[in-house]
């Protein structure tokens, strides 16, 4: 078991790269490289940044698990994985010729035509979601600013999260 969160994150990155490798092995080169760019290039960096920004020094290592959560968690996960495994074991007809690693590869052009043609709505929606997520993430991660005298425009806007804080305290008081 890895004790350090950063190691976890890096190993996670490695496993994402491994998944990308599996994609490429399956002939989906474009997908694999996209996975690499997104997960290794962006999400992994986000995660390590989040780790660096949120973990106090003593928390950089992971807490020990309580027995209860350990048992329930692993049990449920094992159950689900086991069910999947069993289902997989009883499935026939997946090892055919199409499954050979030498099969036809994914044509990037075809994928692009699908994205820009029949599924253009899905593509646009994905773009919209990304944009909204970008803006949302920026707004969420903006540092809370106390009202300053210097900038009048900022002062009349309630700082992000202020209302939430107040409500929380009110809830505790009640």
């Amino acid at each position: 078991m890895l004790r350090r969160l950063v190691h976890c994150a890096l190993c996670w990155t490695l496993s994402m790269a491994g998944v990308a490798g599996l994609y490429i092995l399956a002939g989906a080169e474009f997908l694999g490289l996209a996975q690499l760019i997104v997960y290794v290039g962006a999400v992994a960096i986000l995660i390590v940044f989040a780790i660096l920004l949120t973990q106090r020094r003593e928390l950089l290592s992971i807490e020990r698990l309580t027995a209860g959560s350990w048992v329930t968690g692993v049990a449920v996960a094992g159950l689900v994985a086991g069910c999947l495994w069993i289902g997989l074991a009883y499935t026939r007809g997946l090892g055919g010729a199409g499954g050979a690693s030498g099969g036809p590869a994914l044509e990037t052009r075809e994928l692009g035509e699908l994205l820009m043609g029949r599924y253009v709505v899905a593509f646009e929606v994905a773009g919209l979601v990304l944009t909204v997520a970008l803006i949302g993430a920026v707004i969420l991660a903006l540092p809370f600013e106390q009202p300053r005298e210097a900038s009048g425009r900022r002062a009349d806007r309630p700082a992000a999260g202020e209302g939430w804080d107040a409500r929380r305290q009110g809830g505790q008081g009640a």
Partner: protein
Amino acid sequence: MMSWIREWLWLIPLAPLAAAGLLALTPRAGRRRAAWLGIGSLSVATVLSWAAFFGAWPGAGGAGREVNFTWLTFGRTPLELGWVLDPLTGAMLAMVSTVALLIFVYSLGDMRADPNFTRFFCFLSFFAGSMLGLVMANSLLWLFMCWELVGLASYLLIGFWFEKPAAAAAAKKAFLVTRIGDLGLLLGLIYLYTETGTLLCYDEGRGCLEAAALAGLVERVSVGGITVATAISLLIFCGAIGKSGQVPLHVWLPDAMEGPTPVSALIHAATMVAAGVFLVARVYPLMDADVAGEPGLSAALQGVAWVGAVTAVMAAAIAAAQFDLKRILAYSTVSQLGYMMMALGVGGYAVGMFHLIAHAFFKALLFLGAGSAIHGCHHERDIRRMGGLRRWMPVTFAAHAVGMMALAGVPLFFCGFWSKDGILHAAWGWPVSRLPFLLGLAGVGLTAFYMMRQMAMVYGGEYRGGQLKKEIHESPAVMRVPMVILAVAVVLLSVVGTPAWPWLEEFLEGREAAVRAGDLFEHETLWIMGASALVMGAGLVAGWRLYGRRPQRRADAPDPLRMAQPAVFSLLEQRLRFDEVYEATVVRSAAWAAEAWDWLEREVWQGLMQWAGYGALAAGWLSRLSDEYLVNPAFDGGCEGVRGCGRGMSGWHGGRLRIYLRVVAAGMAAMAVWLTWG
């Protein structure tokens, strides 16, 4: 080589129209930008127009002169628009853009002091762009749209000085009178569309001006025993009558002189009035369809010829008794338009167009000269208060004189002579009647007479205007240069239309021209040339004897002609009382109808509306009641129920993320188990 211009022809009207759009957004102070935009865009259009002109050269273009495209689709019916580049369009484009460009440059000087300079150029560009669009139209619908845009632009420009009541009234009059003709045109187009199912002129054999459609139109018979083709032609000709100021709808044209001089020049030379003649020329195959083979025999064209001939001589007579410098020219325009119509009517299609182009140049020149004189005399327009200007304004005088000689038809060196001679020749050959020829000949004499009168009173003799004598000045170079260019063009243009080398006619008919010097000396040609020169000379001499030999000394001295023929003169001075007659009949009856409707509105409809209102109020009251006692309680109850449900459901939520996660996982597990064993 030049076939690209056919695809890009739309740029020609677009350039001025775009400039107009930009100018509409330009602030008042942007005078320099306005001038640059207006003149620059029109220069682009001019260059392209000349390219189009050469592109329309016989044998230059490839197959297919027209470019059509679908504009709108109603159900399964496509509405197609398009443009065409044939010799007619090419020549008109070159003429309109060139003349308009010179007038634009001229207006730089003429309108220099006007505070609304920017607006003026905006409208001017709009005007020129609309006309260029009209000329290239292949679809009669497009033509009609541009036609109306031209009408709108003329309204805006005639009423440019709308603070002057006379200008506002003139604009309104021009707009309304031409609308009367346009109604006929619109009806004609609708009729044409119902009969042929297309408004495209040329569409590879399917257009409404092509043989297949025309044959159908000639066969069917309309109201009153005339063929459909004739009926449509006459309706379309109504539009031309209105736009080109033919009798009886000519009354707006002289009044249109209230606009700035460049506008008058533009309206009279290049754009507005030419549109009517152009329309007739454009639908000439339809007009002519009735009697195949020999041109000028169909019922429609006979009508055109008679209207033209009457207009030609009547307007010339009126012009002889006017005192407003620009108004004389206006009636002269009406008269010349009559000549063009007459030419078209008697079958001289190419000659009529030649006269249109020639007239555009020399009438523009005359207007610019008149404007220059007016400009120099501090906006004095009454020729009785002018006189002797040749001393102060030599260039204007020379240019004006060239224009005058071209208009009067001084032989050999001026295009007006050749074009008018061609018209007379065509009229002589008309088998229906010789009367138009005689009327035309009379018109020639009258034209020479009133032009001589004008020249003598404006440039000859002594200045009669009073105090302002010292301040009379020649116009600036920016006004002089366009005049000189036009004067040179007027002389040069005479080369391409002589019977010896009728280049323009052959061009319009799509043939290569050849020099046939012998035609010049045919008996008939020589005879008519001699006759017209003789009549013209008589007119000039009469004018000189009455006005030139003993110039008047004072502004309020009576007119020599009035002394000779007081009754005729006063009738002519009052423009044959057309306006008064219209006032007594059309306007009066319209006012009466308006009053009748007013009474109906007040007494009948209002009461009905009031009762309808009460009914609506009652319905509203009922509706409110049902809302308050029926809908609202039901809705509130529903909301309360939903809220209660929500409150109950929210009890399920602990608000702990980890617990949620576990619930999700448990659900997932359950689902996996069910899918595996279930």
